[in-house]
């Protein structure tokens, strides 16, 4: 401990009179009389646990967001790329499927024969009749 000879307060400024000096002494004694605080039984153990955890690079390292966010930067960049590209390709697919789902007037006009083509119990005459009727209707439409 450094002993400077200042163990008794001797303020340089402002110069105290004797009453000031007594007041200073009273306050100093009162403050010094404050008992030491009670220390938890596990105080030292908790310090050692923290030192050990930091030495191991334990969970406290995880609390440092800077460490793991830097490591996740490539994954984040990939996700951002997917987020940008996906909507574009998805809208293109949706457009093409919508277009294929929209029936043309020609497809509609052949629908009866197409339907009958796939029915097992339709006779050959009925099939021919349906095809001719459809062709006839198309001819009128033109």
């Amino acid at each position, binding site marked *: 401990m450094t002993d400077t000879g200042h163990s008794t*307060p001797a*303020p340089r*400024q402002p110069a105290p009179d004797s009453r000031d000096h007594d007041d200073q002494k*009273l*306050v100093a004694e*009162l403050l010094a009389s404050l*008992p030491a605080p009670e*220390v938890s039984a596990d*105080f030292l153990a908790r310090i050692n646990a923290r030192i050990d955890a*930091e030495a191991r690079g334990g969970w406290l390292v995880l609390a440092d967001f800077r460490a793991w966010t830097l490591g996740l930067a490539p994954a984040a960049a990939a996700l951002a790329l997917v987020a940008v590209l996906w909507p574009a390709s998805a809208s293109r697919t949706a457009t093409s499927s919508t277009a294929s789902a929209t029936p043309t007037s020609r497809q509609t006009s052949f629908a009866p024969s197409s339907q009958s083509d796939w029915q097992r119990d339709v006779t050959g005459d009925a099939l021919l009749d349906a095809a001719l009727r459809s062709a006839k209707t198309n001819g009128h439409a033109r």
Partner: protein
Amino acid sequence: MDPDRALVEAAAAGNRDAFDELVRRHQAAMITLARVLTGGREDAEDVAQEVFVRAWKSLRRFRGDSTFRTWLHRIAINVVRTSQARRVKLFRLFAPAGRESGGADHERGTGEEAMDAVLARRQAIDRALAALPEDLRVAVTLRDLQGLEYAEIAAALGVPIGTVESRIFRARQRLKPLLQPLIENR
């Protein structure tokens, strides 16, 4: 001569038992200092633990220019200041507009006189100290509660010794009327 010197050298070489002994020697002083400097707003033991953890991590860089005790007090003051700066930032972010920080917390507990006399006295002293500006509070705490020499305080705070003396003098002057009831009851 620093009474902690041998322990500090052993601890700096990695001896945990030596460091444990340093903690035991200074734990009460660090908790007292943390309690006074934070004005009781934070758990003094948590702050004191942070001080010792930082001390352990920096021990190899401790050159022995000052005593270990002075160095430890300097770390404690920095830990509290950093913590308070963080608190102020958080307060500004989340506190409702128009409410100012400081002071209000110290008013807590005025009706707790039913507790034992020692605790009541400690609370009264804490409140009186909390009413001081920070520079006066730190100086008088280091001198009268922690028992540091003037030169040690000057080294811990990085100010001239005359400034330390002046601050302590003014702090005691301001404390006198606040502690008058306790002084009369002694």
